[in-house]
């Protein structure tokens, strides 16, 4: 049991990077995640409990206050991310802050993440999903469907979109991203 090697969601030893035309699709594996769901009527208590770490965003938005980031997942529900290297125990850390005001769940290994970057970002995502990509400003985050998968789309910058999807479907998602990138290349 002492010779186990970690693999990426796509099964490789190192994260996959594909460059197709103007687009770069990068498998991101250095990101720890924990979800925070406020308990009944405790939204403000959760926000103030986490104020020292990160300000939790409003509907459809995200916040980045290094080393932490957070995006809105649903009503009174957020995903918090941080570098895996330094915050492997992110869920425990967040739980210690919020106490009984929220439920915190470790999410790191449940998801795969691809950062898609390039000038033709909107052209590419228009082929993949029905999200209003052209009106998503940097920092916007929403959940939608892409290749029949429920994914989070998180506009990190004008030319960069993070796609966060179920880890077990990483191969299918990657196939769709490559296909869309090739179709606009």
């Amino acid at each position, binding site marked *: 049991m002492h010779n186990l090697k970690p693999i990426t969601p796509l099964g490789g030893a190192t994260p996959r990077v594909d460059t197709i035309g103007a687009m770069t699709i990068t498998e991101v594996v250095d990101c720890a995640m924990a979800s925070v769901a406020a308990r009944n009527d405790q939204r403000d208590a959760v926000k103030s409990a986490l104020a020292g770490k990160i300000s939790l965003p409003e*509907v459809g938005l995200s916040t980045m206050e290094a080393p932490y980031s957070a995006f*809105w997942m*649903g009503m009174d529900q957020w995903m918090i991310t941080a570098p895996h290297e330094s915050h492997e125990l992110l869920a425990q850390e967040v739980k210690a802050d919020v106490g009984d005001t929220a439920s915190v769940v470790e999410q790191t290994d449940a998801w795969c993440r691809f950062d898609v970057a390039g000038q033709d970002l909107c052209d590419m995502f228009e082929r993949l999903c029905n999200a209003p990509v052209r009106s998503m400003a940097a920092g916007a985050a929403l959940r939608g469907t892409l290749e029949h998968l*429920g994914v989070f789309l998180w506009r990190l910058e004008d030319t960069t979109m993070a796609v966060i999807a179920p880890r077990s479907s990483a191969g299918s998602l990657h196939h769709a991203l490559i296909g869309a990138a090739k179709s606009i290349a």
Partner: protein
Amino acid sequence: MIINHPLLGPRDAQEFTYLGDASLLDRPDWQVPDAAQAFHDYLYLRDNPAGDHRELWFHEQGDRSWLVVTRNTLTHEILNVELARDVAKARRAAQ
């Protein structure tokens, strides 16, 4: 069909799943003496209006919120969309 989500704005109906009549929010108290009859009525008796209908929709491929959608069953026009949570809370406050 487009459902105008109260938080997220207009979203395609394919992102949602339909549950049924919004009266499902009024679950009977299981401890009352006539609970069996109340649950029978709750489960099986429904109005089937030709016209405005309040119904529960789930935003499954989105933020997973429950909505109360008022829809005209003749024209499919959507007249009002509320968060089911707000509806339930308002009802509880009114009681």
